[in-house]
């Protein structure tokens, strides 16, 4: 709680100094809007619903795409670790495609799916899938063989060993891969939303883009703050419980 107070005080001081610097004209207002105008914009757009609508559209794309990425990435990662053939094919592909920023898929996605939600899903999936595959694969390969041997002498076989030993033992890797996949998905979606207009829904990226076109920098900065808030919140809601579990059980530092 004390740490929260520290952060709050520091940010408040920062905002006040910023406001004063803009007001006295040391920073030109056309470059940086004062915090009061950003707050005004956020309040207004919260009131008329544009902010909540846009956040809803963005989060829906992100969560659905990310879930598909996880649902495909976890089993593919396990298969890669188990079968040499998969490792040589899907594994290589994943390694290559992970280095490709997924916004590079935008031209093809638009060609294949048009300006639709599907194109957005596709880009989010391409952003998260590969790191989940690679992390799961690496996690399984790093499971200490002694766990598997111990389990086998206790009578564990085949699928039981996979579900009860190999997957839980690779959990630290899997969780950090999931986190990385989330970060990549979030970045790709923002890039894609700024880059293309999808008529079925205006996300946060679109609001940021329009802010630029109208030179409404208080809107740009306001949306940036919202994006940061959502990122922090996701970290707390989605990953903190896992990390707390890992920390408690393994006694390791957070992944």
């Amino acid at each position, binding site marked *: 709680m004390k740490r929260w107070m520290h952060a709050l005080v520091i940010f408040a001081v920062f905002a006040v100094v910023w406001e004063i610097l803009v007001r006295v004209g040391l920073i030109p207002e056309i470059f940086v809007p004062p915090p009061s105008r950003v707050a005004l914009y956020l309040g207004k757009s919260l009131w008329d619903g544009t902010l909540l609508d846009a956040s809803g559209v963005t989060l829906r794309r992100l969560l659905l795409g990310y879930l598909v990425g996880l649902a495909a990435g976890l089993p593919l990662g396990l298969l890669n670790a188990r079968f040499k053939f998969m490792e040589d094919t899907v594994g290589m592909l994943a390694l290559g495609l992970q280095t490709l920023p997924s916004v590079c898929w935008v031209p093809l996605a638009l060609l294949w799916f048009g300006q639709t939600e599907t194109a957005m899903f596709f880009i989010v999936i391409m952003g998260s899938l590969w790191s989940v595959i690679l992390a799961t694969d690496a996690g399984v390969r790093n499971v200490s063989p002694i766990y598997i041997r111990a389990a086998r*002498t206790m*009578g564990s076989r085949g699928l039981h060993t996979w579900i009860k030993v190999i997957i839980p*033992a690779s*959990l630290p890797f899997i969780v950090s891969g999931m986190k990385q996949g989330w970060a990549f998905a979030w970045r790709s979606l923002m890039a894609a939303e700024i880059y293309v207009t999808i008529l079925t829904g205006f996300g946060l990226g679109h609001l940021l883009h329009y802010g630029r076109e109208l030179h409404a920098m208080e809107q740009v900065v306001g949306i940036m703050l919202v994006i940061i808030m959502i990122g922090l919140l996701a970290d707390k809601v989605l990953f903190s419980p896992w990390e707390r579990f890992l920390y408690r*059980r*393994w006694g390791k530092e957070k992944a």
Partner: protein
Amino acid sequence: MQGLEHELKNPPPQKLVVEGVSKQFKIRRNIVQALDNVSLQVREGEFVCLVGPSGCGKSTLLNIIAGLEKPDTGQVLADGQPVTGPNRMRLMMFQESALFPWLDVLGNLMFSLNLKPNLSRKERREVAKFYLHLVGLEKFAHANIHELSGGMKQRAALARSLAPNPAVLLMDEPFAALDALTREQLYGDIQRIWEQRRKTIVFVTHNVREAACLGDRVVLFSPSPGRIREQFTIDLPRPRDINSVALAEHTTKITRALKRYLPGAATEVAE
């Protein structure tokens, strides 16, 4: 009448029979003969210690008895049946505890018990509690593995190995990573538990004194190629104290024998 004669003449049945087992490993381009035509018999309820320097194949033999590795030639019989793979009647305990960090202590015991059929959930929990009590960890049922000391980890691992009630316990240098005081405590514990539960134990160590303290019989291995050289019967009363003079006599005898087979390489063996 013939039945009685048969009964009196024949020794107790062999629990484990190792027949002419050989095993080679390829390390880079060198072939290492880990085991060369090794034969060994272990009676039911016997405590046998395999002793020898690192690389003499004693751990390999233990893995083969466990069914975790296959011999190149020869075979292992358990209760007269050839060993083809791991079986929960022959549980193995390792130098590192190999406890699962994603489960608490009780969870680890339940892992081995859940693989044993014909027990209700309640019975399993009771069995787990019984063995936790036996090793003195009843207060740590819900502790996380990383919170335990080295000695407590090995106690928990012992409880996990004992819980499914295996006939044979295979122990691969289980106390090697512990400090001397903790080890002495565990010598007492393992002897007490062995007397109570009457397991057949095959115990691998490179510590001669430890072997003499625990074993009914000490089997001496020499390396490259891994062979059994001599066997020593230790007929001291139990419980044995690791620091007793009578034990030291046995230790000296075994260490001398060991040095004969290892010109210049005896430094790796603790007396």
